[in-house]
């Protein structure tokens, strides 16, 4: 139990410190201005005349 709590605290500290997202993370990689909603991305891309860069990943 103590170990689980320690891992949770460590994760919270790393998150707060702005560490880069892990592969397969709910948090997208830093850099691009990410959109999480497909409809929003499609409407934005149509109006702005841009392709959609789709990045698909999953939990590991």
């Amino acid at each position, binding site marked *: 139990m103590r170990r689980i709590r320690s891992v949770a605290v460590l994760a919270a500290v790393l998150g707060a410190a702005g560490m*880069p*997202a*892990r*592969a*397969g*993370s*709910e948090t*997208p*990689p*830093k*850099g*691009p*201005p*990410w*959109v*999480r*909603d*497909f*409809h929003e*991305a*499609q*409407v*934005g*891309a*149509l*109006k*702005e*005349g*841009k*392709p*959609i*860069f*789709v*990045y*698909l*990943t*999953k*939990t590991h």
Partner: protein
Amino acid sequence: MEEQLLPREELRPAYGQAVWLYVYRDFSKSPADLAAERVCLRFGMTAFPQHFLVHPGTLERLADTGRELKGFPATVDRVKVPASRSVEPAERVLAADVRAAALEKSGSVDAARKSIDDPDVLVRFRALEILAGKDPRPLASRAAALLEVPNDPFRFLLCEALKKAADPAAAAALEEVAREPQGSLNPNVLRIRAVDALGACGGASSVEVVRPFAASGEWRNGLTRTSVDALAAIAARVPAARTQVRDALAGAYPAPPADAAEARMCVSLAEVVHGALEKVTGRKVRFPDPYDAAARERLAKAWK
């Protein structure tokens, strides 16, 4: 890899040249996960991670940037999409999502039969889910057309449904996919699914299609064992194909590797081939220890 690549300073100019969509699946079936599943199904994704550029109107895949910095900004810069006053394509997708959800909720076989030819691939997938579970038999007569749907999750599920239908009417179309899994983003897995279905639907003509996969000796590839099992299943259903299957399996004993670490997997595959031959022929032949090149040669002749 992407976590290091995408924040790179050199990619900064590309940030304004595309709309960046992040889709994450945790398989929790939460609303966010289900929304991500819809995107994955629409783009036919069966392996992760993946990234690519798509046209927002047609959802056609326009380019792959690759996973190296070299060429990435140039690829994004090269892909041009004209601005549109209409957001009708986005509304069309929303409407299809509504149809797909209604179909899924109803579970109706009648509605699924009508929706299997829907213009939207997600709706077709939901229709197929229902038919695969409740009424797969009529799919066999339409196998050729349906296996051409350029979407791997759809084709994987269709192969499962055709296996369940166990109708020889699907054999020729499955053989075609096994020979050449055209347009697949995951061709080996599509082949595995098609060969597996051929075990239930295939006949003598399927044996020649499956034979090279069984005889590949690639013990790390799931296709090899699936092919051995499919051949044995064909022999069990089609007496006229038994001799042909026996010969195909006798040629499927894998070549013992030079690397001792690989030997265990090689022997394991050889035992699977051996077991299949015993079932097909109804005979018992002692499996040799050690399994080496000479033993392999003796075994191949032992079943004639």
